[in-house]
């Protein structure tokens, strides 16, 4: 390989999407350059904690053997929190479909695979511009250096400044994005097994909703790592800004997270564990709102978060497997395009067809509108209050407890919810969850 020649493909960003594309293309014999601004692939990454395994196995069949898997998720929990009252549902299964990991570790593993397959990974270098000439993308520019390629794969993640510069997408609208903040707590290994009732390599994914987000749409998460626990909050940026402007939100997000960590119900698990890491990252609020009008143009395809492909249903998050899958589909489309006369817009748009007939797209369409549900105060504030109210009436009676129906009726009237409206709304939502 020489550094002066043209590349078949330049991939911007060594996240799950970029590395999946690079891996498949390099394996097929393409001359691939991956440019990553962080020091080493993965260094800029932060996510919650659970990854769906099967879509990754489709790309890397040796996933189970060699990926940095912390624990296989055999228990899922979902909790509603109002003050100190908590309602938790747990599902336990012997057939885990996802595993917990740190994204920096997993992304590095994926990038190493691409390098082993023959891709050239250049880290510590930021791409400043995707270069267009005579109506087609011809390569990327970093500082004064231009590198030419037949196809550029944009895998720059959620904050897609390059696509914005290119005029392919609008400026990121706060309405479509959420801010995630996360702490990693060092609990020691035995603690996780003991306190959460898990086996040796078994893990838990735990989503939390309710007043831990101080009235801002969003929620909390807890994931078990090998000997640490990751906890965090995800907050709707648009609504958080509104709340701050109205003076309803005064606290820094780190303090909200601190409150979550110190919440008596949850703190019992990790106690005074050391905080090993604190970090934040933007993410997509969900839905199809961030998908660009075109996912492929002349000489360019867009994959992963940059393409707006993420699903957050409130009980599960799928970003990494969607990103990697879109990277795979883009790579397959590029290979076909080369076989069919070159990477023209028409040939590259095969990627869109592939994506739209994949599980990624079907999932996104199936749950479309979910982000509107999740930012509806009826669901993220009133519903938890209602259900906790019911539980309180059922379980906190000294002498006589009401019937479930009475508890419901009392609770709805206390929360000023019209039962009819709630049922109607629930009815319209269940189809999206």
């Amino acid at each position: 390989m020489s550094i002066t020649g043209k590349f078949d493909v330049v991939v911007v960003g060594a996240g799950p999407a970029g590395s999946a594309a690079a891996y498949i293309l390099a394996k097929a014999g393409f001359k691939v350059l991956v440019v990553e601004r962080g020091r080493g692939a993965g260094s800029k990454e932060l996510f919650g904690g659970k990854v769906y395994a099967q879509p990754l196995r489709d790309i890397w069949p040796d996933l189970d053997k060699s990926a940095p898997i912390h624990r296989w998720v055999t228990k899922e929990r979902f909790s509603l929190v109002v003050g100190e009252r908590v309602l938790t549902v747990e599902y336990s299964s012997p057939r885990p479909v996802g595993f917990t990991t740190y994204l920096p570790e997993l992304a590095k593993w994926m990038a190493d695979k691409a390098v082993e397959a023959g891709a050239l990974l250049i880290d510590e270098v930021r791409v400043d511009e995707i270069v267009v000439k005579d109506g087609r993308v011809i390569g990327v520019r970093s500082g004064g250096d231009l590198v030419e390629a037949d196809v550029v794969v944009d895998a720059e993640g959620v904050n897609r400044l390059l696509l914005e510069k290119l005029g392919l997408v609008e400026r990121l609208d706060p309405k479509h994005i959420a801010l995630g903040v996360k702490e990693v707590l060092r609990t020691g290994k035995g603690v996780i097994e003991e306190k959460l009732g898990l086996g040796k390599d078994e893990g838990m994914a735990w989503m939390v909703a309710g007043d831990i987000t101080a009235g801002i749409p969003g929620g909390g998460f807890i994931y078990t790592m090998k000997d640490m626990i990751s906890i965090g909050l995800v907050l709707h940026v648009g609504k958080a800004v509104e709340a701050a402007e109205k003076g309803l939100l005064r606290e820094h997000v780190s303090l909200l997270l601190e409150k979550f960590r110190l919440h008596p119900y949850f703190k019992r698990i990790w106690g005074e564990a050391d905080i090993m890491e604190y970090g934040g990252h933007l993410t997509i609020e969900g839905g199809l709102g961030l998908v660009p009008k075109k996912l492929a143009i002349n000489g360019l395809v867009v994959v992963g978060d940059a393409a707006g492909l993420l699903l957050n249903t409130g009980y599960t998050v799928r970003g990494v497997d969607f990103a990697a899958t879109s990277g795979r589909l883009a790579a397959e489309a590029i290979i076909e395009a080369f076989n069919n006369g070159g990477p023209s817009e028409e040939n590259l748009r095969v990627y869109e067809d592939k994506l739209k007939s994949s599980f990624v797209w079907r999932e996104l369409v199936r749950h479309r509108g979910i982000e509107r549900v999740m930012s509806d105060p009826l669901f993220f504030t009133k519903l938890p209050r209602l259900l906790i109210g019911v539980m309180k009436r059922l379980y906190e009676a000294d002498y006589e407890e009401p019937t479930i129906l009475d508890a419901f009726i009392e609770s709805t009237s206390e929360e000023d919810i019209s039962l009819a409206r709630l049922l109607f709304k629930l009815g319209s939502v269940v189809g999206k969850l």
Partner: protein
Amino acid sequence: MRIVVGIKWVPNTQAVRFDPKTGTLIRQGVPAIVNPHDFPAVELALRLRDAYGGEVIAVSMAPPPAIQGLEHVIGMGVDRAVLLTDRVFAGADTLATSYVLYHGIRRIEKEIGKVDVAVFGQETIDSSTAHIGAQVASWLGWPYVYYVKNAKLDGDRLVVTRQLEDAVEEIAVELPAVISVAMRALKPRPVTLKNKMRAKVEKPIIVWSNKDLGLDPRCVGLKGSPTIVAKVTYLPEVPRKKLVYKPKDPKDAARWILKNLFLDEKTGPLLRKVLWGDSGA
């Protein structure tokens, strides 16, 4: 001119934690980096080359992962690098390190060509001795100037600006010479795409082991290191209470802090004693 610049591969001390139980450093999982104080040295070396032509060769005595650091400085524009790596070099103090670097430079002169200037950083973040530049100069028998801020060529001499505490000094030295660049004296240039690609693709890094240098094993590594660290004491980690308070105004904040300090069983008596000579009863 041919310029050699010394690079140390160090643990990122900002990420190192102490194990309070054993009193040792937890280095595991801590990423290594190029000693940040070496960057101004690299920058000066590159500026000299850009101004007068020639080449810059980075040299490092380190285990093989340091190749990553050498790729970084090649990414900045260094022409090539020499890694001096061998198990017998491990555990070296500054004397044994400078001895290996000295022989590394001698070998560069033999294999590649005459060296005009050897540039080092002021000190390293993991040991802060500031010995290496001076020791290498002693081995080589070359003049040594330190706290250097800038340098330019004047005939066959190097005119060096030194940053002193209350003055700036300009002195001329005969070449070849060794200089150490003051911390933060120059802003290092960023890594560029083409340079980093060259580092990865052309791999302009020469690796020499002790087979190549042929040094007496008693003079290198742990065996060649007369320095003994007699004792290391760490300040114990103070368990924090981690209280958070949102004061209305500065006065309120001051009142709250004082109240908590007075009520605390450790700081309370101390404070009373300082303020009123009270034993705390």
